[in-house]
């Protein structure tokens, strides 16, 4: 199985690549961008741009209530709310990491795509630029935030048994593997 959890850390470039691809999937705004990002996962799945997006929207975007809303506040604070406590906690973390978010207050800071973007950029400065200054914050972000809600998000999305989408299941399993790998190779606080 392609998404089998591997024992060891991925080569750095692969790990970076995966965080970037997942980010691109969740921040895509049209079917073409989504398809390119999806293809980068190398699923070998044949699916049209249109069906891929339609499934993606049904799972995560709307306009009907999506199967799993992609914001941490939904899982950590309140089922129906964005821009709540956990959103602002993530905002504080970004600010401390030295980020600004031009779309602040327009897109909730805890949108999964934005969080994956932060994670990717933090990995990047460590892996490519060899700067460790934010490593501890990245670990904190992973263990004290991402790991608190993304598993719940994945679980909710995978629990969909009305017309489950193989492509979405694939994306979610990749996301899950990624998180598990990040967690395992970096050590969980004892």
């Amino acid at each position: 199985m392609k998404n089998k959890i591997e024992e060891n850390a991925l080569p750095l470039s692969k790990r970076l690549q995966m965080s970037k691809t997942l980010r691109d999937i969740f921040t895509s705004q049209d079917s073409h961008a989504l398809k390119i990002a999806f293809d980068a996962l190398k699923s070998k799945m044949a699916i049209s741009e249109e069906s891929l997006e339609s499934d993606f929207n049904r799972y995560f975007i709307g306009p009907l209530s999506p199967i799993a809303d992609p914001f941490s506040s939904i899982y950590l604070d309140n089922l129906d709310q964005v821009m709540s406590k956990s959103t602002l906690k993530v905002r504080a973390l970004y600010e401390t990491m030295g980020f600004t978010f031009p779309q602040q207050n327009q897109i909730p800071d805890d949108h999964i795509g934005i969080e994956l973007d932060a994670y990717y950029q933090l990995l990047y400065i460590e892996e490519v630029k060899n700067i460790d200054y934010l490593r501890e914050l990245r670990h904190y972000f992973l263990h004290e935030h991402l790991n608190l809600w993304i598993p719940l998000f994945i679980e909710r999305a995978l629990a969909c048994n009305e017309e489950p989408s193989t492509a979405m299941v694939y994306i979610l399993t990749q996301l899950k593997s990624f998180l598990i790998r990040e967690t395992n190779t970096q050590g969980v606080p004892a």
Partner: protein
Amino acid sequence: MSYSKEKVDTLLHNGISRRNFLKGLAASGVLSSFPGGLLEANEDLNTKIPYLGEKSYETFRNACPRNCYDTCSIKTFVKDGVMQFIEGAQESTYTRGGCCVKGNSYVKRVYSARRLKYPMLQVGGKGSGQWKRISWDDAMEIIAKKLLEIKKDDGTMLGAALTKYSGNFGITHYGIEGMFNSIGYTTRLAGTPCWPAGIDAQNLDMGNMWCNDPEEMKDSKFIILWGVNPASNSVHSMKYIYEAKKKGAKVVVIDPVFTEMASKSTQYIQIKTGTDGLLALGMQKIIIDAKLHDQKWLDANSKGFKELKEYLDKDIKLDDVSKVTGIPLEMIKELALSFAKAKPATIWMGYGMQRHTNGGSMIRAIDALVAVTGNVGKYAGGARYGHLSTWGFNYAALSMPKPEGSVGYTGPEGAKGEFAQVGGEKAAYTDRFLNINKTARELLNSKDPKVRLLWVACKNPFAQDFDRNQLIRAFKQLDMVVVADQFFNETAKWADIVLPVATQFEENDVNVSYWHYWLSLNEQAIKPIFEVKSDVQIAALLSKHMNKLEKGSCTFPQSVDTKEMTIKEFNPGIYTQFGIKSWEELKNGPVKAKAVIPYADGKFQTPSGKYEFYSEKALELFGSALPKYLEVRKPYDKFRMTSPHSRWSLHSQFQNLEWMEDVHPEPSVYINPDDAKMKMVNEGDTVAVFNKQGLLRLKAKITDNVQPGTVLMYEQWYNNNIYNVNELVDDTSSDMGAFKTGAPGVALHDTFVNFRKI
């Protein structure tokens, strides 16, 4: 361990560690090393920020723009660009610091995950559920192309139709009609499903619909709340009613249903539905017979009192009044005489009462009761229904010229609905008006040219209109349906394109009420979330695309700032009425119009200039000059069904919010114990309620708050549930409405049903 939770937590919450950390960050080279993405390196990193979250609240002025008597003035508290909470404005003596449960949920509403977020196109066709996200530019280009195609094919824009109603009563929201004005002569679903029969009635009697200030009610000596339930639906009026009651006033509720208001009254009188007009006439007869009428006022200010008296003498038999209304004669007499003796006395009439085939005539009869006792034109008196006297804005967003050379409709002109007050000289062409209360049928039958595009704004026809199955057919046969809304709903399900709309906190506007006399500025308090846009910004973008495709095809400004748009609505008349020099004063809080007592000067805008018991206009339009008793529609099934408003929602708004669903999770039908027993229905049973129009399944609640022979269901849309009480309603018209609003109202409460346990 790869990190210390405590250390990072301290970093986030402790000013000194955070400052040190940021200094190190600046030195570490991180900022120039980020690869960049949606998050960017903060080049102006402020290493001095002592402490996160210490910024204080910013406050903004807002108003609740819903179709609600109270139109609350709101103060909004924002921190870090995020709305934290709201409160009712202290400056307004009417709102007095508090909103209702609905208003108090505004933060949750604005930040509900259920908001529509992006423009979307239903690629699999209407109702398919296959949606594609599109950019605003793409959405507007698709719509612009369709509009221009319609114009090219038909030679007019009449194939484009707009249905808009009361979802947002902010003045700049007339920019939606403005958008349609700006593309040519179009088709409008016109009229009002709400209050038209009563508007006509009051205009026939007094030449206007103009109620006294509700705050005066505190000094009324006798208040009749006739078919109105402010305890649920105008909570801010309650303090005046309580105050009057405390000072010894009698507060009488006349209603077929034992409402929350009834439970708080001095006396509750249960009346048989649709017979209120007869009760009012009977009371007048008693009063006149006892010589307790105000002859002096009548001589000076009225026309046709003699004819009224003759009619009462000849045709109104008190025994019949008692029998038909179901109220003991002694009780009617006592009510009539005590009402006549109390001065000032007032009657507040609800809108439900005129949603009958005899609704307008009932309002006329009650107006007459107030007039006969000399309570019209008096402080703390009045026949209260509503008013539009503070609505004299410029309607700049509405008043868009037609593009040059526009061709339109040449048939008879209809009126435009109650709020559209902009005049204009008679043109060669007009828009085409279809009856909003017969939307499905009118869309299906439209021809020469056929309606091909429908734009839905501030309205949820599938939750509120009649005849769902026909409506689906009507929507399906349209080339394009555009739904602009804040939430996904049943109507959006049948759209081709949905457009996400801003809440009042994300745009500027100005609001007044059809009940109280306050004026509130609505300031943009937060950035529009996701990709939502205000209705006028949508219009501007459409204009941009239409003009790109065909220069001059749309006259709406191609870019708008909602603040500038709002400022344009003010004029010297508004400033004088409210005693302000500039709209900017409203930033300090809402202001109230200078006190005026309607008709105190004895001037009525009727043909005779007097209060008209006898109205030639009424004779001409509706066949009766006097407010004669008109029998209500005959039953066509076993039980009458009434469908009042719930306190938990405003039509279909608010009900979809998650916490509201906790309070009021599913629709029920309320049945009298006698009827329930007869039908062997117990509390909580699922019953089918049906008639010739349709069938609904819902839970039974047994209560003697409703009369035997009547069932009650709240008119509201339940999220994730296609329940719409109007599926049982046919579109039979009420008697009046066509005079002032262009189309008669709907006799919603003259619906009859049967039910059985399932």
